[in-house]
Every structure is written in C-alpha cells, then in structure tokens.
C-alpha cells in the first residue's frame, strides 16, 4: 500500500493530480495530489477551510476543477456532473444530507434511478435491493418510514444505502460524524469496516484526529488549500498530524486546548484536570420547568431546569438540533418562555412578565450567539459599529442619542488591542475579517460589558486554531472573575475542556447533568450515552421541586 509502489499492477481507485480550484479571491485548492488505494479507508484531515470539502466536491462533480486530472482505476475521466461521478462508481454521503424529508426511505433511495417512466416496478425491485444491502452490510432501515421522522444516524444510513444502490465502489463521507452521538459514530465505523471487507474504497473527510486514528488505513493532511502530507495511520501519531494540520509545533499549546481544538484523544485519560471547586452560593440564573413551542406548534423545549452559578461554567452538550438553540433564544430574551420561569437575581421572568434582550443586558446578562452572521454581527457594518451593537446607548458609542465616530473608533481600537483582533482596523467592514477575528470581536464586545452571566453558543465554530486557544482562555478568565457561564457546544471535546458541570439535552429536555470527574474516558462515555437519550444518569438534584407558584405546567 505504499503510495510510490506503482509496480504492483493494480492502479489506485482514485488518483488526483494537480487539482486547483479558485472561488473569487479564495484559492480553495492549490495543486493537490491524492492517491487512494482500492479497498482501503483513506482519511483526509484538515482544519475548517483547509479545502477538504472542495476537493471531494470536485471528485463528485459538484464543482469543476480549474486545473488537474482525475483518474479512476487508472483511467483518466472527466467528471462534470454528479451523474458522471455516479457513472464512475463514486457515491457521496454529504455533510448536510441530500434527502427529501417528506419522502419515504424507498422513494429517496429510488430518486434518480427509478428504472423506467413508471414507479411501480422500480419500487418493487428497489425494495428487494434494499433488503439485500441491509442484510449484507448491517444497514437496517424501514423502507416505508418517512425520512424526516428518522433519527439522524438512520438518515445517514439511507444516504449510504442510496450510494451503494447506485453501484458505488468508492464512497466519500464528508464530516459524517458531526451530527452523530458517540454511539452512532461507533456504529458508523463498524459499517465502514464492513464495507471495506467487501472491497469498497472509502474516503473519509474529517477534522477530528480521533476518527482518523480509529478507522483509517492511510491519511492525507490538508492545510490552506494544499496537500501537505500523506501518512500510514499506523505509523503516525495524533501529535504529528496536529502539527501538520496547524503548520507549527503544538507542543507549547496547553494539552486541554489541543483536545478541544482537534479532538485528540487524551491518551491515558487518567489525569484529572483542574476544575473550579463547587461553590455553595446561590445561582446567578435559575431556570425551572421551562417550556417553549415554535411557530408551527412543535414543542422544542419541555421542562428544562438548570442553574448557572457564579464562577462556574455549565456546559450544555447534545447533538445539534435538540433544543440548545431554542434554549439560548429564550434565555437571551429573543423568545418568550411559554411555561416555566427564569430567575435572575430578584427578577422573575415568565410568560406574563417577559424580558427582552435590552432589559436582560441591563441585568448583567451577555450573549455570544451561536450563529455569528445572523445574530452576532452585521457583516455590512464596520467593526467599530459592530463593537457597540446592543450597547449603542452607552458611553462607548456617543452621548446616547447621537453616535460619535471618534468615540466608536477609539473604543473599538481598544477592544481590538486587548482581544488581539486582526487587522486592528476599526473602520473595516465586518465581512473583511476572518471568522476567528469576527468571533473575537463579538466576545470582546460582550465581555467588555462586564457581565455577571454569559451565554455563549458554539464559541469556536468556523474559527482557526490560534483563535480557539485565545477564545477558550478568555472564557476561563471570565469564569475565574466570578461570571456565571452557560457554554453551548456540539463539540463534546470543547465542553470537556472548559466546563465544570455538564448538562445534556436530548429532544428538548435536559436528560442528565453531572459534575465532571476530569477523567476523560469516563466523562465521555457517560455523556455520550446521555446524548443518545439512552441513559438518564443522575437526576439533577435541584431540578425537581416545583420551583415557584408562577411556574406554568410543563408540557406533557
């Protein structure tokens, strides 16, 4: 399986040479070479924006490369459309599933290869094929279930089945584990190993080192659009790969940050990390029996109870889409609770006495939103304008009625200096900053207000590693100053690295809460079970008693 072994006779399943692709000013891929041996699991790893997804999208015909050559089984091919890729035996499981939620599994699997103008005959054949494939690879799924009703892990199976049914011998998986619980991830890897046994070639795109080490045979590392190294998985280490990804030595990086940034397994996992000591003080923010339904009447939060204490980070873990975003909306005043109460100091917030974001801000609550571009900044505004959004009546912006450009620029320049925002140009439009620097400015704005309570959602999503270290450091510093912090993240590694306590959400409920032991493997497995909604580890002690007469009844 040596990449230079050309004499072996069997050409590689995929050989890419000199692939380049530019989007406007961004060179997404630069002269990329890649060889994938037939019947192997090949990982491609790199940071966000390293060009991994672009590369496989070129292979699957979503994009056309500006330059370069694609060979499949030794033959040069032109892949200008997905149809052409499918004809070459390439299948892809996308990060965001390409499934029609209102269709059944069978209809989704048939789509594009229905076998004639009428559906009836093809449906019968597809049903039989599905049964064969399910039993052959352990991919059980009910063909008549509506895809939108299936759990995410099962939807992913449908995607894999779709590709296999179209005759895929080369299967690309783009960040397949981002939406899975740890348990589902384990099952996916079993399926991938099964496919490899049957001779399927697998290309696994990920930014998590743990997954590369767990399942791949070989790994290629991308950085800033370029392919920087190829390694046999067995003869490399997570540290080496991390250095290749980042392009500098990471030994100086605190171990905890490395774990959070890259998902490197903590190895022995036996060393407890420093956590804040349990504080006996009352909660800065208490939530009891919170319930919320969206505009369509679907229950998104039910009976949510939790307490944020001063000087403590409560990590809120869970697979994306289980109510974390809605909880942040309600707590930050964007949405009004429909049942239950929120207490901040003396202020009781409920359905009849709602509090908007401005009042909450006055109460000392700051919010770093999950979706930076929709809620955190206005991309078309300058940095100095963004630096006072929400605080535009304060002294930093002017006299309360008229804005003072000089004050704005001065305030913003100070923030940029303290939070290392680059370029330090207050007059530059927000869209001109990288994701990491945008996030630093948002964090700077909220921390500058000296909050007593900080809600922070996905603080390092789409942020480069250098900025991750910095952002994590600032959050910890704020905790040590006595701020009560709610950290919502879908990256379990990030929660394990920062939080003192963890609550887990599943289907709109808090399904468990625990103080972290600091023993990585133990925490990880228990939280993983809770994320899957399997185990209810420990009843949160304080959550049970009916908190207040105002607490509306929680939804059934």
């Amino acid at each position: 399986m040596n990449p230079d072994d050309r004499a072996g006779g069997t050409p590689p399943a995929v050989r890419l040479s000199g692939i380049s692709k530019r989007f406007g000013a961004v060179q997404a891929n630069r002269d990329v070479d890649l060889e994938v041996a037939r019947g192997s699991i090949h990982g491609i790893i790199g940071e966000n924006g390293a060009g991994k997804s672009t590369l496989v999208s070129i292979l699957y015909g979503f994009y056309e490369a500006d330059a370069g050559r694609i060979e499949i089984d030794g033959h040069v091919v032109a892949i200008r459309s997905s149809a052409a890729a499918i004809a070459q035996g390439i299948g892809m499981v996308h990060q965001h599933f390409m499934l029609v939620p209102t269709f059944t599994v069978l209809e989704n699997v048939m789509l594009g290869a229905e076998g004639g103008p009428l559906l009836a005959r093809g449906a019968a054949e597809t049903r039989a094929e599905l049964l064969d494939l399910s039993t052959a690879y352990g991919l059980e799924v009910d063909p008549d279930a509506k895809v939108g009703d299936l759990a995410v892990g099962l939807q992913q199976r449908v995607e894999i089945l779709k590709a296999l049914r179209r005759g895929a011998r080369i299967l690309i998986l783009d960040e397949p584990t981002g939406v899975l619980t740890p348990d589902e991830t384990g099952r996916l890897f079993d399926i991938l190993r099964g496919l490899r046994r049957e001779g399927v070639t697998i290309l696994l795109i990920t930014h998590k080192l743990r997954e590369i080490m767990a399942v791949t045979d070989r790994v290629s590392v991308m950085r800033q659009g370029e392919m920087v190294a190829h390694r046999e998985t067995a003869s490399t280490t997570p540290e080496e790969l991390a250095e290749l990804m980042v392009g500098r030595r990471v030994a100086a990086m605190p171990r905890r940050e490395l774990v959070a940034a890259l998902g490197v397994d903590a190895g022995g996992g036996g060393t407890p990390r420093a956590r804040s000591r349990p504080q006996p003080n009352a909660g800065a923010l208490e939530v009891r029996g919170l319930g919320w339904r969206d505009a369509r009447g679907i229950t998104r939060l039910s009976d949510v109870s939790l307490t944020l204490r001063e000087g403590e980070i409560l990590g809120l873990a869970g697979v994306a889409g289980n109510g974390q975003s809605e909880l942040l909306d309600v707590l930050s005043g964007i949405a009004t609770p429909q049942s239950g109460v929120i207490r901040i100091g003396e202020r009781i917030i409920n359905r009849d006495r709602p509090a908007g974001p401005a009042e909450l801000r006055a109460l000392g609550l700051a919010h770093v939103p999950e979706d930076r571009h929709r809620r955190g900044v206005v991309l078309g505004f300058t940095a100095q304008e963004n630096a006072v959004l929400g605080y535009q009546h304060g002294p930093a912006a002017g006299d309360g009625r008229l804005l003072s450009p000089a004050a704005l620029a001065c305030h913003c320049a100070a923030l940029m200096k303290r939070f290392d925002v680059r370029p330090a140009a207050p007059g530059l439009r927000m869209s001109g900053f990288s994701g990491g620097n945008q996030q630093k400015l948002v964090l700077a704005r909220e921390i500058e207000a000296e909050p007593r309570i900080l809600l922070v959602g996905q603080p390092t999503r789409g942020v480069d590693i250098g900025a991750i270290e910095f952002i994590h450091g600032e959050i910890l510093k704020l905790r040590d100053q006595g701020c009560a912090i709610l950290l919502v993240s879908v990256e379990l590694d990030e929660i394990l690295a920062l939080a003192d306590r963890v609550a887990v959400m599943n289907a709109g409920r808090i399904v468990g809460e625990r103080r972290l032991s600091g023993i990585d493997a133990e925490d990880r497995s228990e939280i993983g079970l809770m994320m899957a909604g399997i185990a209810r580890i420990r009843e949160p002690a304080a959550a049970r008693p009916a908190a207040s007469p105002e607490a509306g009844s929680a939804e059934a």
Partner: protein
Amino acid sequence: MDWAALSELWIDTLRILDGSFRLATPLILCAMAGLVSERSGVIDIGLEGKMLAAAFAAAAVASLSGSPWAGLVAALGVSAALALVHGFACITHRGEQIISGVAINILASGGTVVAGIALFRQGGQSPPLMADERFRPIALPGAEALSGIPVIGPFYAELVSGHTLPVYLALIAVPLVAWMLARTTFGLRLRATGEMPLAVDSAGVSVVLIRYRAVLIAGLLCGLAGVFLSTAHGAGFVREMSAGKGYIALAAMIFGKWRPWPVLGACLLFGFLETAAARLQGVQLPLIGEAPVELILMLPYVATVVLLAGFFGRAIPPKALGVPYRKER
C-alpha cells in the same frame, strides 16, 4: 311536497351543480397548472396572464381562420411561450419569481388589448364568434334516450352530458395530474425538486430540466383555460375577460394544500359560489329582501379571503418554493 315540485327541485339542484362545474373549469385548469409548477418549486402567479393571452389567441385565430381547433393550437402555443419566458427568467436566470409572474400578467393584460385593436379595431375585443368557430357542447350518447327516466335521466342529461371539450379535459386533468405526481418517475422527481433540489442534483438529475418541464405543463393547462373562456364558454374575446380567475385558482391551489383532489374540491366550491351568486341576483331572500347585485357578486372573492385567512389549517408549501436553484461552478 308533491312529486312535480320534488322533481323541479332536483332539476334545479342539477342546474346549479352543472353551473358550478362549468364555472369551475378555468379554475381547475389553472389550479392544476399552478400545482404542477409550484410542486417543482417555481411560484406561478402568472396563471391569470397566461390564461388571458391564451383566451385572446384562441378567439383571434378562431375568428380569422374559422376553426376553433386552430384557435386551440394558437392558445396553447402562446401560453406555453409565456410559460417559457417565465422559466427563462426564473430558472435559467434565477430571477424573482413573483416579479416575473406579475410582469407576465401585465404583459397579457395590455398586450391582448393592443393586439385586439390592431387586428379587429373593435376596442380590444374580438368579433363575436359564429357557432362553428367555437367548441360546442358535446351531447354524450344516450342523453336523449335517457332523458325520460326520472332522477337518473336529468342527472345524465343536465350534469354529465352537454359540456364543451375543455370542461371534459379539465375533469380528466385532475386524475392525470394526481397520477403523474404519485405514480410516475417524472412526478417523483418533480416533487423532490420542489422540496430538496440539492438531493435531485446529487442523484444526477437536472433540476433545471425538471423545472422547465413543469413550467411548460403549467403553460399548456393555462392555455386550455383560455380556450374555455373565449371559444367554449364565451363567444369571443373581451378585454380582461379572465377577471381574476387566475388568482382565485391560485387561492384554490393553496387552500387545497397543493394536492390535486383537495384542489379540485376547492375549485368546485368557488365555482358553486359563483353560480349561487348569479342565481341569487334579484331573488327575495328571507329577512334581508333583495340583496344588491354588487354584494352578491362579491361572494366568491370574499370567500377567497376568508378561506385563505387560515380557517382550515395551515398549508405547508413545497419547501424549495420560490427559491432559485444555484449550482456553484
């Protein structure tokens, strides 16, 4: 109540139903057109304009050539051409779909009058059509023979038999569209395109082609509706003769939640209201006496507003409706 009065009531009921059905015809054809287009993800607010332009083309060509069939072909051609313009703006160039639809409506509204004046010099109308320049009611076999039989006879003669070709075509269009959507490969792809075009693309099927075909089908159905207006129901083209029926069809389509059979029901309901409105004119109603004509004629339109105000549950449109499909390159 004696037998004669009962029989009269039966015939009256049949006549109202017959009228409902006839007046529902353009609604059914347009609503099916809108349904096919919108299930593929392309908003079609230009039903009205396509129908109006087709009505003009049908009447003008029938008048000039003396053949309703030539009028039919011209109507389908004009309506399909407008549909393709809509497709070119919305699918190929990813334009704003509502704007494009409104443009087509305005174009048809003004264009028919201009062309009418240029061709016939009668203030935008077409000359009245002779009997053999129109589609005549088709007497189904046996209508004559069965008419003597009580109950069934009148039912067959009044309701089933004696309609024009477009009416029967409208009736066939509903099961045809339902069958196409549910049972054919094209239907599956069309529905998928309206919900999740990326899934269709990644399955190796062209989203653009599916949407063009859907828009074209919509054009042909609107064309038939136009034929009905000017050469079957009416006898010639009158300016603005579509009178908002395209919009009511749109309402019926939403009210029927983009599903063929419920949409048919909604169209028949609107047709019934229109017939009832016509019949109520000049009739002494209990308590209120004779209602003003204007109020009665408002009925179908008021009903549209009331029904769409959400009295009958939320309608969930196709997810990708109105969203142009952009494929990066």
